[in-house]
């Protein structure tokens, strides 16, 4: 949902507004899509345990957020805390992961939108539903392009009243479910798709449903009384969201027969269909689409804001701060983010995107807890209106739980998580590598890459020439040899120019100096 609160010029935000900001961060696309994977593939009805664990872990982490946000009620949230504790290097890493998490969350929202649209079309005809599912990648691209355009044009966000409408809708669903009557949900004897370990693996997938509550930290600078209201609001919203989601899942599980249900169809929609008839399913599909659009818009906005912040700090190119001459918006970051989201949303892999979005957030949570401990040590006299109870037990627990949640699904045999974790570690390598390359200096890197280019180009050229003679198989058989030959020539020439770039610069500088000397 929308993470931004309406600005109040004279009065600051009150406790209610800040709590709503937290809930609006938590109520989003995740409940509509990730519950399915956790229920059908990992934990079965025991997903309820996973929800409780996920909610409690979120609550523990929010206590650390409370301390830091009241000690530093400045704009920037986690970025400010981490940078203050560990300096620019870790701040850069944080920024990259937060940016990537926003990109993955936006992609997840785009894919989920198509699922909701497919469910809505099923109310019209099954052929239309099939057509929507078959053309899902086109719809994803169109919807991301539309939202990216809205971001470039600087459109207004959906207001807080939508959050209240969602809460009412969910409460109506729960009450309706109990009136309608539920099947017996026996958690102790229910079959578990992956055994007990599946429950632990499911936690990482249900966890993104809760983490949005931290969004209210961004309202700290606008709050009337941040020192009191921010910790209260963080704890209230983190507590309120647990029974809300638990009851939603309980009613959904109690009204749906898993053997008659397709896993691609959101379980909440089917449950609403069973409880309220066809209209219930349609209303939930529309609500799901609104949630998807809202999450997509917010995530695009967040990624743009992070990219600009890092550009301001000199980590990303200054080009990212370009302002559109007509709309006055940051169009370069909006377009760049939208293109990345389009590429990822074409994959249509909901579990992968869900885990990847969670991956960035969990690393950030670990860093926030570490920052809290570092600041307690290095700045013991800093004013802290709220102190995390049971220090250092809770922050240490926060770090351990965040990191263990990252690897739990892999250890418990969730193959999808292994893919996502491998990709995540690859991204970590790219982030760290790019930082070190930046610190090494541009020309050295350019010369090194030039050498790599020449070497790879010559090797590729030789291998392809040998394969042309029939003595060996081509290295990548599905790419035509003439394309590989063309690429190898490009690599050699580009590598050569990169390799000698420093000579140009030196000559250029020397001639420049001589010019000045002569003219002088």
């Amino acid at each position, binding site marked *: 949902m929308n993470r931004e609160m309406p600005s109040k010029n004279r009065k600051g935000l009150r406790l209610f507004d800040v709590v709503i900001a937290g809930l609006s961060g938590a109520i989003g696309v995740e409940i509509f899509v990730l519950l399915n994977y956790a229920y059908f593939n990992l934990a079965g009805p025991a997903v309820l345990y996973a929800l409780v664990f996920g909610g409690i872990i979120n609550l523990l982490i929010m206590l650390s957020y409370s301390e830091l946000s009241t000690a530093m009620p400045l704009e920037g949230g986690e970025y400010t805390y981490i940078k203050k504790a560990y300096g620019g290097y870790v701040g850069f890493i944080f920024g990259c992961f937060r940016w990537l998490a926003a990109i993955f969350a936006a992609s997840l929202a785009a894919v989920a939108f198509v699922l909701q649209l497919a469910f809505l079309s099923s109310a019209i005809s099954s052929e239309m539903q099939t057509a929507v599912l078959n053309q899902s990648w086109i719809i994803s691209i169109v919807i991301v392009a539309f939202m990216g355009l809205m971001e470039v044009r600087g459109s207004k966000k959906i207001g807080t009243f939508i959050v209240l409408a969602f809460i009412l809708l969910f409460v109506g669903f729960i009450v309706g479910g109990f009136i309608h009557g539920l099947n017996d949900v026996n958690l102790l004897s229910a079959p578990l798709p992956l055994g007990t370990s599946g429950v632990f693996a499911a936690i990482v997938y249900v966890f993104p449903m809760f983490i949005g509550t931290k969004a209210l930290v961004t309202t700290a600078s606008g709050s009337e009384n941040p020192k009191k209201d921010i910790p209260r609001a963080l704890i209230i919203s983190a507590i309120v969201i647990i029974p809300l989601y638990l009851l939603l899942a309980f009613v959904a599980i109690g009204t749906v027969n898993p053997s008659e249900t397709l896993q691609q169809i959101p379980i909440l929609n089917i449950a609403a269909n069973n409880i309220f008839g066809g209209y219930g399913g349609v209303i939930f599909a529309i609500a799901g689409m609104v949630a998807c659009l809202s999450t997509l818009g917010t995530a695009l906005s967040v990624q743009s804001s992070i990219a600009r912040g890092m550009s301001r700090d000199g980590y990303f190119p200054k080009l990212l701060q370009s302002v559109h001459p007509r709309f006055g918006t940051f169009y370069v970051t909006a377009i760049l983010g939208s293109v990345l989201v389009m590429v990822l949303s074409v994959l249509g892999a909901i579990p992968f995107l869900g885990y990847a979005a969670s991956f960035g957030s969990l690393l950030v949570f670990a860093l926030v807890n570490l920052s809290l401990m570092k600041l307690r040590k290095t700045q013991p006299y800093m004013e802290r209106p709220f102190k995390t109870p049971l220090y250092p037990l809770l922050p240490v627990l926060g770090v351990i739980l965040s990191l263990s949640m990252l690897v739990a699904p892999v250890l418990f045999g969730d193959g999808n998580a292994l893919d996502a974790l491998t990709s995540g570690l690859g991204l970590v390598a790219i982030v760290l590598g790019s930082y070190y390359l930046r610190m090494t200096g541009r020309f050295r890197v350019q010369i090194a*890459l030039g050498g790599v280019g020449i070497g790879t180009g010559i090797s590729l050229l030789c291998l392809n020439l040998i394969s042309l003679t029939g003595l060996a198989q081509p290295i990548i058989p599905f790419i035509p040899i003439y394309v590989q030959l063309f690429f190898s020539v490009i690599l050699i020439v*580009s590598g050569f120019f990169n390799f000698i770039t420093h000579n140009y610069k030196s000559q250029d500088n020397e001639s420049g100096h001589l010019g000045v000397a002569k003219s002088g």
Partner: protein
Amino acid sequence: MLIKKITIKLVFGSIQVLLSLVAILLAILLRFNAFDMQVALNTSVAAINFYVMFLLVFGFVFIVAGLFLVYDWWES
């Protein structure tokens, strides 16, 4: 002469970036079997990881290298 070299840098840098982007896109499509890519390209399951890793690693490295050349042109 220098202007010609700078233009050549732009041309080769841009082509390299484009080709590298295509390589990364191909790796992603191949990994997730989007549009039945694995069947369409007739790749064995065992070799997919190798191709994906190869295309991704070299794709990223050569995007950076290509962007350096484009940046040289931009600076000039």
